[in-house]
């Protein structure tokens, strides 16, 4: 029993650490995208801007689901261990290579082409990694603890994001902005190599999944997992149910809670970058243990209701939550009730336009009595015929520093959103592996997962911004995740079975203990 326990923890740690590193690798590119764009995709270099779009869009939307198919098939034919070892090597080496590529100034057009290729490899590897790790852990887990054990894999996406932000912040703090933009941004990419080598060493020492080994020794592995997954009606209907009744809603809840929240605080509320990052990081750190909690709970009461409740709460509370963000950062309203404590000396700059009009920009930092501070930029256009009378005065507030109480209120509200993420995401690995038989599990579960997260989740920033530009209402962007989550909730409610702890040992005898084979 003790051996089994230590065995399962080796399985969980080997799988989780590798998956965490893959997420770390994937996120650092996203977090450093503005700097990478300047290094590799200069806007004035024509086609390179297109490659930048491809790198960002294609890696998430096309290549991830494609990776799920390629590596899912491989995992169902060759085995889980070697497949997710391969995805780790691909991800690690491409990340490390991005850190070494000379910039556009040195090698010209080759630079963005190489980066694009490496980014696509990253997306491909990520598409293959998750299904392998989740399947591998689930196939080692006893039936009644499958939700608990696979939930460790579920923590890795959030922890990977936090680790990537911490590494970037540490590097940033130890050099000047100029040094960081020049070469410092490469360090987080190069650090990945050390992490990946450790993870590869750990994974090399692991055995193949006992269920898959048994299947292989019995000669029952699938010859064509893709055909079996998507052309057999019994399986295809489960793939579609997994996508439209679970992963689609899970994807938008996940992206809204972690990424859209950060983007909204930084770009819409105009909170200063450090505070926005601090708020989201604290919320994620506080909420991460709940992945384990809801994974454990799903073993007791079933996966369905926990996931659906997470979606429903998101649908019902996103608008009030984001309205609170806006209200607590609305300078005009706050300044009405709070006196100005201090204001810096305004910096005035004047620029003359081609038509002889002048643009006068006045910038100063204002701190209110309650501690709320902001940078105020007033732009006046002085018409040459108006003899110095300004027109079109426009005031922009940025780099806001919210009060201490508002700060912690925001941490709580982001925490609540990440809590929804833990509800929908914590049990989903166990839910997905239980839907499909061992012989085609890797392929069948990977595709709905990556379409749900990569496509539906990945479109949250793009479609939300699009809706805002049409409506001019900063909250209207929430309609996309709310509608998708609501549709998914209805589908899940109607069609998902509430049954929990289905027997994953489908191709084996009931007394078979997978943990006995773990080293």
């Amino acid at each position, binding site marked *: 029993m003790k051996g089994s326990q230590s065995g399962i923890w080796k399985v969980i740690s080997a799988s989780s650490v590798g998956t965490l590193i893959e997420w770390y690798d994937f996120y650092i590119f996203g977090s450093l995208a503005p700097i990478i764009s300047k290094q590799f995709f200069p806007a004035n270099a024509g086609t390179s801007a297109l490659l930048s779009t491809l790198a960002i869009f294609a890696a998430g939307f096309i290549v991830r689901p494609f990776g799920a198919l390629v590596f899912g098939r491989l995992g169902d034919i060759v085995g889980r261990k070697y497949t997710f070892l391969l995805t780790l090597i691909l991800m690690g080496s491409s990340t490390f290579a991005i850190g070494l590529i000379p910039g556009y100034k040195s090698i010209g057009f080759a630079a963005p082409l190489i980066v694009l290729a490496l980014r696509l490899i990253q997306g491909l590897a990520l598409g293959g990694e998750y299904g392998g790790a989740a399947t591998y852990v689930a196939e080692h887990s006893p039936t009644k603890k499958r939700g608990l054990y696979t939930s460790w894999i579920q923590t890795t996406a959030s922890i990977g994001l936090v680790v990537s932000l911490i590494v970037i912040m540490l590097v940033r703090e130890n050099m000047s902005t100029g040094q960081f933009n020049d070469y410092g941004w490469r360090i987080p990419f190069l650090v990945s190599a050390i992490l990946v080598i450790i993870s590869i060493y750990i994974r090399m020492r692991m055995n193949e999944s006992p269920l898959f080994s048994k299947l292989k020794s019995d000669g029952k592995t699938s010859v064509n997992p893709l055909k079996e997954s998507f052309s057999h009606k019994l399986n295809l209907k489960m793939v579609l149910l997994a996508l439209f009744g679970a992963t689609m809603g899970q994807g938008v809840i996940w992206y809204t809670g972690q990424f859209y929240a950060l983007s909204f605080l930084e770009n819409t509320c105009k909170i200063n970058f450090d505070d926005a990052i601090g708020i989201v990081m604290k919320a994620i750190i506080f909420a991460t243990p709940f992945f384990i909690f809801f994974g454990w709970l799903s073993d007791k009461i079933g996966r369905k209701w926990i996931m659906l409740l997470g979606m429903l709460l998101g649908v019902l509370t996103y608008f009030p939550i984001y309205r609170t963000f806006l209200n607590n950062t609305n300078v005009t309203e706050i300044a009405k009730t709070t006196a100005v404590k201090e204001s810096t000396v305004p910096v005035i700059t004047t620029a003359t336009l081609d038509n002889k009009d002048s643009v006068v920009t006045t910038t100063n930092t204002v701190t209110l009595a309650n501690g709320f501070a902001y940078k105020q930029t007033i732009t006046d256009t002085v018409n040459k015929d108006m003899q110095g009378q300004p027109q079109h005065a426009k005031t922009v507030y940025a780099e806001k520093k919210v009060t201490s109480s508002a700060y912690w209120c925001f941490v709580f509200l982001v925490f609540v959103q990440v809590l929804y993420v833990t509800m929908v995401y914590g049990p989903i690995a166990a839910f997905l592996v239980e839907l499909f038989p061992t012989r085609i599990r890797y392929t069948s579960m990977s595709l709905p997962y990556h379409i749900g997260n990569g496509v539906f989740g990945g479109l949250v920033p793009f479609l939300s911004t699009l809706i805002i530009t049409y409506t001019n209402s900063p909250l209207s962007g929430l309609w996309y995740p709310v509608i998708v989550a609501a549709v998914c909730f209805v589908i899940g409610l*109607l069609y998902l079975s509430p049954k929990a702890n289905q027997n994953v040992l489908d191709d084996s005898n009931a007394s078979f203990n997978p943990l006995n084979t773990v080293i």
Partner: protein
Amino acid sequence: MNIIKRIFGIIWILLAPVCLYFLIVNALHAFAKADKAIEAAATEAAKTAAEAAKTNTILQWSIIIIIFLPIAAGLVIFGKYAFTGEYDSTAPAQNTMA
């Protein structure tokens, strides 16, 4: 409950082309907006930037619509299965699950 499941099947079948229509209309709107930006560009540099932005817009929307086509087809198939009772409580489940 099975009747509700089947009725909703029709909704899922209809939802797919509606979503696709929404995406295509928005894409065309975005292309038209990009065209206007090119026409409105005052300098050569602004025109080049606007043309690059248009190509980018076309690329982004093409990727989204292309990737959404099989998803929409999947939603139609899902709706058809729901409508024909494949997800009814008495329908055969995954045959290998206990």
